[in-house]
């Protein structure tokens, strides 16, 4: 069974083994280990001590757990709404021909070339309340002292905005490409019906982009659990715990409090969330179906 069956010219399962083995060693095995570690006490330097359900019981009195979860949900949903609301119209707009649009779009894409670390550092400089741009622009938007990342009510939204700054260009690209593939005949028909520009956008463009909206949304949702570096560098989870999203909560419990056991509990929760999201995504999109030749995304 394991040999390539050359009679039919079909590859055998062996072809898939290296990828699977590799994935198992560096992705699946760690997931199992992290479950194991969640039942231990471990500071990272000594040997893990089995402590049964102690860490799991600690979940109940971790006052930061629910706030972190809530922050994660807000971050995910707000990022999704904001990025879609910006990227969809801009992508459609950029799909139209013309040199000025092309030039503009070319500039838009530059953030795409920057690493999260670079972006977080750049924005950290911009948001410095005393020497950065925040001191100049803050008063214009009602934040007189330029206190953006130090204000617990604003910090999360600043992170959401910086994350959008990083990822919107990519989604603009997706929408731009997809819009260009909408058959012109559909627009002509709508035009003959006397539809206005806005009506055409709603009646033709958006429905035609449905699959792209799904793709783009999936990438945003899946990515949101990994928005981590920007927050770590920009606010470190602060001020207080105002931006301590779940992945950061885990990281800090593990690598600042050196409570690797409890950090593993949170890691398991993250894994469950991530896996749940993956299953949801593959079900909704039909990604997992293997036989369709034309399935779309």
């Amino acid at each position, binding site marked *: 069974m394991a040999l390539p069956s050359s009679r039919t010219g079909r590859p055998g399962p062996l072809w898939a083994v290296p990828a699977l083995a590799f994935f198992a060693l560096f992705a699946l095995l760690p997931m199992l280990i992290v479950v194991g570690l969640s039942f231990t006490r471990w500071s*990272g330097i000594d040997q893990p001590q089995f402590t049964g359900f102690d860490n799991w019981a600690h979940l109940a009195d971790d006052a930061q757990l629910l706030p972190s979860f809530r922050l994660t949900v807000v971050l995910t949903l707000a990022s999704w709404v904001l990025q879609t609301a910006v990227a969809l119209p801009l992508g459609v707009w950029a799909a139209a021909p013309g040199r000025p649009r092309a030039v503009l779009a070319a500039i838009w894409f530059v953030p795409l070339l920057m690493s999260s670390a670079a972006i977080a550092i750049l924005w950290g400089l911009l948001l410095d309340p*005393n020497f950065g741009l925040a001191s100049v622009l803050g008063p214009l938007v009602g934040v007189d002292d*330029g206190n953006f990342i130090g204000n617990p009510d604003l910090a999360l939204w600043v992170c959401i905005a910086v994350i959008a700054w990083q990822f919107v260009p990519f989604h603009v690209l997706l929408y731009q490409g997809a819009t260009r593939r909408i058959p012109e005949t559909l627009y002509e028909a709508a035009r003959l019906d006397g539809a206005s520009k806005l009506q055409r956008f709603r009646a033709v463009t958006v429905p035609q982009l449905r699959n792209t909206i799904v793709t783009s949304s999936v990438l945003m949702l899946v990515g949101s659990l990994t928005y981590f570096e920007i927050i770590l560098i920009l606010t470190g989870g602060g001020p*207080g715990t105002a931006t301590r999203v779940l992945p950061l909560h885990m990281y800090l419990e593990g690598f600042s*409090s050196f409570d690797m056991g409890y950090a593993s509990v949170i890691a398991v929760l993250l894994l469950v969330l991530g896996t749940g999201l993956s299953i949801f995504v593959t079900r909704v999109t039909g990604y997992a179906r293997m036989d369709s030749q034309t399935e779309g995304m």
Partner: protein
Amino acid sequence: MRMRRNNGRVVTAAGIAVLSLALAACGSSGPSDSASGGSTGGTDGSTGGSAAGGKGQLWVITDASLNPLQKASVAEFNKSTKSGVTFSVSDFANDPYKQKLQTAIGSANQPDIFYNWGGGNLKQYVDAGQVADITDAVNAAADFKSKLIPSVLDVGTIDGKIYGVPMQGVQPVMLFANADVLKAAGVDAMPTTWDDLQTAITKLKAAKKTPIALAGSQGWTELMWLEYLLDRNGGADVFQKIVGGDKSAWGDPAVTQSLTMIQDLVTEGAFGTNYSSVGYDNQGTLALLAGGKAGFELMGSWEVSALNGNFPKFAKSDSLTWGKFPTVPNGKGDPAAIVGNPSNFYSVTNASKVKEAAEEYLTTQLASDTYVQGLLDVGQVPAITGLEDKVKTGDFADFNAFTYDLVKNAPSFTQSWDQALDAATSQTLLTSLQKVFLKQMTPQQFVDAMSK
């Protein structure tokens, strides 16, 4: 930033009494009990059995002033040693360093000599069996040992065994100020009482300056205020009880009183309004102070070397001034008491393949004239006895003399809390305190969170 943290034991009253004695006594008296070491010559590595050579790693924290000195001392060792071993220095930013050390130690990639904070910070590595007992080597190097201030060496000593030796200056926290800014606002002298400070704050606010620079995005800078206020209000004993494991001591009225005073400072705008966006690791408060935008900053004595690294002109000018933390009304604490870090330490890892050479490095270099002078030159007072004359020379003579006296006259020297307590408690402490500053937590809620 660098030296603020130490875990574990607090060096307090008893220890410091010894420190003062030692400082006064200078030189060979106290610690020359090296006979008890039972080791003879060879162990300190100068001959070091295995002359086969090898390479060793020394880990320190990034510091523009100190790193060159540390590297020079390693280079000096590499040149002069007969062990054939050469060391190289790697430096890391403060916060990543603690994580790096935690994960690397005990692994194949651990350093041979590592920077640490002594006390409880060092103890956790000792408890895990990762740190070499260097008692014999230190005792064998009697000349070296006799130069160390005993009470500071105590912080590197656990259960009677020496695991770490002090490698840089004593680090008391004190109030720094930009004298030009103060003068322009009509503040003529460093505040000595809480009322003085209040007056200064009012005047500075009127002069449109941030009265006190505070790097509120990093909780440990805020912690210094609580450390001093509690010490002044309730005395050093309160935290002694806490670090001894008595969580109910958080409920001491002096804790809530100190936290209330902190919130009052915040309310009156003593730290400005945007302090929670300001960082210390990116030298945000240094720029505020040196740039004339703020009047005061409460910081460890390393502030001078940090300023010297980034704003040398300001650091060497008369504009930079300093003073003791002010007294508070009806305070139970001794106004001469200080908080901060007794020093930082080098320890040798247990699994190091070049242990003897590492011991040789520690005992031959850390008290050498070049190294001591190098520390003094960058504004650090080493934990070395008999420096009365030496501290009065160089660019930072006044400051060094002040620090020397401050430490010498202090009845107690409370170790930074986030070093004295275990890592998890420290984290809770720091985030809770940040919330107190942001007024997201009342003093009572803070007490409840900490006594849990």
